[in-house]
């Protein structure tokens, strides 16, 4: 599919392990059905939860009658808010961001329901079938309250979702630099519009699933769950249940995708834990797709008014934006509801040189499913808006879209560059990515083909999108604004056991990224063993003392950094031990492929022999030396600021001028993700991300009716792309090293989703450039195109055929 350049190997004497196309070690297991997901875990005596969920968007709970449900076959109990509140402290996502109002997120609805799908009661029965039968018997008496579905109306505060907050405005923020008003008035050209990407949902293939087991003898709680953040959950649950960490363990076994939706604390997690302790039996909840589409955190629901000012040469001089984020009903823990909308204004200036910027954001609560992190957070929207503005400007100035970008992208000599929102781009190949993408795409040729196709009455469009993102964020910057937890460090422990086997333990939680492979590559390279010699432990809060997990394009930078540091110090230990065993100077000891040898001699031992000498054959190393040695090393890595990742995407679409069906025909991504650990895995991440971005551009949309009912409650109605809708995607990698991270890595897990909506939107707009219409709303469905085109033709009748 892809023709990524082989990375890392060129120019070094020995082909590096880092940079090699090592096959994913998790694949044989996952592809042959031998993975082990939470739902596969059988616990003796386990009971099952089904939730009675709100079918109202906004209502007061006047009463809950569970008598009939309690009598239903196989039912062990029906539990409501008070039962949980008795054992669990409430969840409140706090932030020290000014103008943020923390609201409570009760695991089971307390007093009020605020979105369709909100859990109201938990029914526990011998199996899920019986639990569902009984859940249907729980009678909730609702007093309807006015719905709050339109975010702009919600701002008027006529009806309050959280009365104790006193307003629906949950967060507000403004970034400003330079004289924006002056830039706007003095500009040769100002382009502006109101943009919207409709609400999306992450739709991981594995629905959420949790199994809590309480060992009453040890007073210890273990939660297995489909989560990206076992360490973060462990810390949160420790607070909620007031348990010490050594009696509380959170394990993420194989996890079938997350895309950010499994990176928060969920009510269902708290409920299964509380019930396991109360009932003394393992308690499992396996969410189904309907629950996933109504009660898993959703994404990207912003209205953005933005304008861009340029001089006569097409140089950007000012940018202004006003963002309203529809955050849904609750502020999700720990990220808070400000995460997504604030990132939109933070990243709006993109990779461009713009002196003056003002961005204002308001996050508004509505009676919809809570939003949360989703692959790309904020940047898919900011990139869509900015890249549309850039193309609109290019058109008005009669500049080629590639040329206007070349004029405005920050150039190599300008790094580090501080964007108007305060973000600092350390250094990345902004211009190089554009050039490489144009090159690989065959831009000039394709433009000629496009012109010819137009001549034949075909609507072909080409769209470019450039963006930059911050990845591998360290302790200096909070992953979400003002959040009181640390997401800027990761820890690794690497151990050589008495058999000589190498085990590297991390707190991150791979859920599709192939981190078992890439982290093993890094450890193997740094330590001097073969990839297959290294086992990776992850997804277990017991593995390291502190961790959060895998999200925000952080794992290869942070865990990779921790792997590098700990492997280096372990290697020193091995060298010391070997110098005793092989009776040679430490400087002469080499280690490669798991064999330790003395340079220039044939004296060598395997790691297995070395381990035996160290742990078992007690006379091989003197006692004093042994006691100061340890075949185990731990290290924590903190990239402090993080680093920049950049890319340019180019999409080519063809639109059927009569049905308005849009087909993506060609797709190229050129990206700078720093040093590439495994080009095959990077390609896979790019492909998947682009597919999700194409979904956002053309297909996916969570739809509510006026009363807040969710209309997209199944995959019949929530339309995700399938393989047939995704073209071959070519990814080219700019193989540079980040100056700011250990190892030179940059994060790249989200990028595909960031660039694709913008590139596809620009391509659609380009295809329709003969018409006077604006592509300012995604997904650009055939229905929307039909209405847009019919409206421009100024009649209510049939659009004329062809355009």
């Amino acid at each position, binding site marked *: 599919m892809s023709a990524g350049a082989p990375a890392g190997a060129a120019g070094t004497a020995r082909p590096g392990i880092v940079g090699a196309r090592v096959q994913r070690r998790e694949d044989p297991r996952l592809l042959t059905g031998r993975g082990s997901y939470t739902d596969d875990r059988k616990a003796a005596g386990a009971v099952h939860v089904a939730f009675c969920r709100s079918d109202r968007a906004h209502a007061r709970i006047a009463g809950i009658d569970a008598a009939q449900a309690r009598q239903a076959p196989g039912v062990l109990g029906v539990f409501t808010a008070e039962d949980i509140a008795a054992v669990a402290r409430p969840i409140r996502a706090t932030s020290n961001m000014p103008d943020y109002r923390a609201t409570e997120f009760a695991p089971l609805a307390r007093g009020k329901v605020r979105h369709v799908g909100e859990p109201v009661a938990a029914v526990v029965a011998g199996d*899920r*079938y019986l639990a*569902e*039968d009984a859940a*249907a018997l729980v009678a909730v008496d609702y007093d309807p309250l006015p719905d709050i579905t339109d975010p702009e109306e919600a701002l008027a505060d006529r009806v309050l979702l959280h009365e104790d907050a006193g307003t629906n405005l949950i967060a507000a923020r403004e970034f400003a630099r330079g004289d924006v008003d002056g830039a706007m008035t003095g500009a040769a050209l100002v382009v502006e519009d109101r943009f919207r990407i409709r609400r999306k949902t992450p739709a991981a293939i594995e629905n959420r699933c949790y199994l809590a087991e309480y060992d009453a003898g040890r007073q210890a709680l273990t939660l297995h769950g489909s989560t990206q953040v076992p360490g973060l959950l462990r810390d949160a649950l420790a607070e909620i249940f007031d348990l010490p960490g050594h009696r509380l363990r959170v394990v993420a076994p194989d996890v079938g995708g997350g895309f950010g939706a499994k990176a928060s604390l969920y009510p269902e997690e708290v409920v299964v834990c509380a019930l396991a302790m109360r009932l003394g039996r393992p308690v499992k909840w396996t969410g*189904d*797709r*309907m629950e996933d589409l109504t009660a898993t955190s959703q994404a990207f629901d912003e209205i953005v008014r933005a304008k861009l000012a340029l001089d006569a040469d097409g140089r950007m001089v000012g940018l202004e934006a006003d963002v309203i984020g529809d955050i849904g009903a609750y502020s999700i823990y720990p990220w808070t509801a400000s995460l997504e909308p604030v990132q939109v204004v933070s990243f709006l200036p993109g990779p461009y040189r713009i002196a003056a910027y003002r961005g204002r954001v308001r996050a508004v609560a509505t009676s919809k499913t809570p939003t949360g992190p989703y692959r790309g957070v904020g940047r898919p929207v900011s990139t869509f808006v900015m890249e549309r503005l850039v193309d609109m400007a290019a058109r008005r100035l009669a500049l080629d879209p590639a040329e206007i970008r070349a004029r405005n992208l920050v150039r190599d000599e300008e790094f580090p560059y501080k964007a108007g929102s305060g973000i600092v781009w350390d250094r990345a190949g902004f211009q190089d990515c554009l050039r490489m993408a144009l090159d690989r795409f065959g831009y000039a040729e394709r433009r000629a083909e496009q012109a010819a196709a137009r001549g034949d009455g075909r609507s072909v469009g080409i769209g470019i999108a450039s963006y930059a993102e911050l990845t591998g964020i360290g302790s200096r910057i909070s992953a979400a604004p003002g959040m009181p937890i640390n997401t800027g460090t990761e820890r690794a422990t690497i151990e050589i056991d008495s058999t000589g086997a190498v085990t590297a333990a991390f707190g991150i939680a791979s859920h599709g990224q192939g981190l078992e492979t890439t982290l093993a590559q890094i450890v193997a390279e740094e330590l001097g063993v073969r990839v297959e010699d290294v086992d990776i432990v992850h997804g277990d809060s017991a593995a390291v003392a502190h961790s959060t997990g895998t999200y925000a394009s952080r794992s290869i930078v942070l865990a990779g950094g921790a792997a590098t540091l700990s492997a280096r110090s372990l290697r020193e230990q091995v060298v010391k031990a070997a110098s005793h065993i092989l009776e040679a100077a430490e400087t002469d000891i080499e280690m490669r492929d798991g064999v330790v040898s003395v340079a220039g001699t044939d004296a060598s031992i395997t790691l297995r022999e070395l381990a035996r000498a160290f742990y078992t054959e007690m006379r091989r190393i003197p006692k004093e030396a042994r006691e100061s040695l340890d075949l185990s090393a731990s290290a924590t890595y903190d990239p402090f600021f993080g680093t920049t990742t950049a890319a340019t995407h180019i999409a080519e679409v063809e639109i059927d001028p*009569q*049905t308005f*069906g849009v087909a993506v025909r060609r797709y190229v991504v050129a990206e700078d993700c720093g040093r590439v650990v495994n080009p095959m895995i990077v390609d896979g991440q790019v492909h998947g991300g682009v597919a999700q971005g194409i979904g956002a551009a053309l*297909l996916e949309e969570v*739809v509510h009716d006026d009363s807040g009912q969710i*209309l*997209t409650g*199944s995959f*019949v*109605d929530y*339309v995700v*792309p*399938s393989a*047939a*809708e995704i073209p071959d995607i070519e990814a080219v990698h700019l193989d540079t090293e980040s100056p700011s991270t250990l190892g030179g890595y940059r994060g790249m897990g989200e990028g595909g989703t960031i660039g694709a909506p913008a590139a596809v939107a620009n391509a659609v707009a380009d295809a329709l450039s003969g018409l006077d219409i604006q592509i300012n709303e995604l997904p650009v*469905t*055939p*229905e929307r195109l*039909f*209405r847009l085109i*019919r409206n421009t033709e100024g009649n209510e009748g*049939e*659009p004329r*055929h062809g355009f």
Partner: protein
Amino acid sequence: MKPPAFEYVAAESVEEATARLAEYGDDARPIAGGQSLVPMMNFRLVSPAVLVDIRRIAPPDAIGEADGHVRIGALTRHRALETSPLIRDRFPVLAAAMTHVAHLAIRNRGTIGGSLCHADPAAELPAMAVLLDARIHVARRNGERIVEAGAFFEGALWTALEDGEIVTRIDFPLLPPGTGWGFREFARRHGDFALAGAAATVTGSAGRAAEVRIALFGVGETPVRAAAAEALLTGTGFEPDAVAAAIDALRNAVDPDDDLHASADYRRHLAGILAGRALGDAWARAGGGAA
């Protein structure tokens, strides 16, 4: 998304199936491939107390030709229709339509009887039955009847079947030689139910269209024949004006609903575009009326 408890019985014969269905009354439902019924049960949209499995009834040679008809057993799988040499030869339009039905895994299980009885307004097979004037054989305890396709579909997910009745066979009358065909649908994704679709056959004679049939689906409660448009085109040489008049007539005749995926206006627009394309294909395949 788990169904409530139900009883399951497997019938070995039409007699046994209809007897069981009669015995349990409207608490019972036949199940064939389960590709529509099981999802509806999981959503608890239907909760039959008894499922009567009819799959064991199928005779092995479910597709055959006799008396000027191709006869298809109700339990014939979608995939068998798609790949049958006889269908490809006699009803290439039907073989082409089948490639648009769902995905391979579903086509391997779904049956023609199930698709007709489920009667989704956007499904391909009901439209084919209407286009090709299929005759639907229905059995009940101690009785049988034949329902013309045109009278079988009464509404969305609603047919002329009475409780206790099952479809056993569908007969498709052979088309005259030299009949051209066209099939076009528009779906948002490959394998999805169409937002709208059209199928046409044209039998040509000396440069004229001697017989024209157009069936539309996804644009109303049931698949429909576009009778006015058919009449306008019959006898013409498919001159652009004649086709345009037919398309206008057909757009005026359909009464689609708004839903999540498409507005009524857009569906009506699509119906015209797709019917125009299907008719163009059919006319070309009929040799431009040469035969």
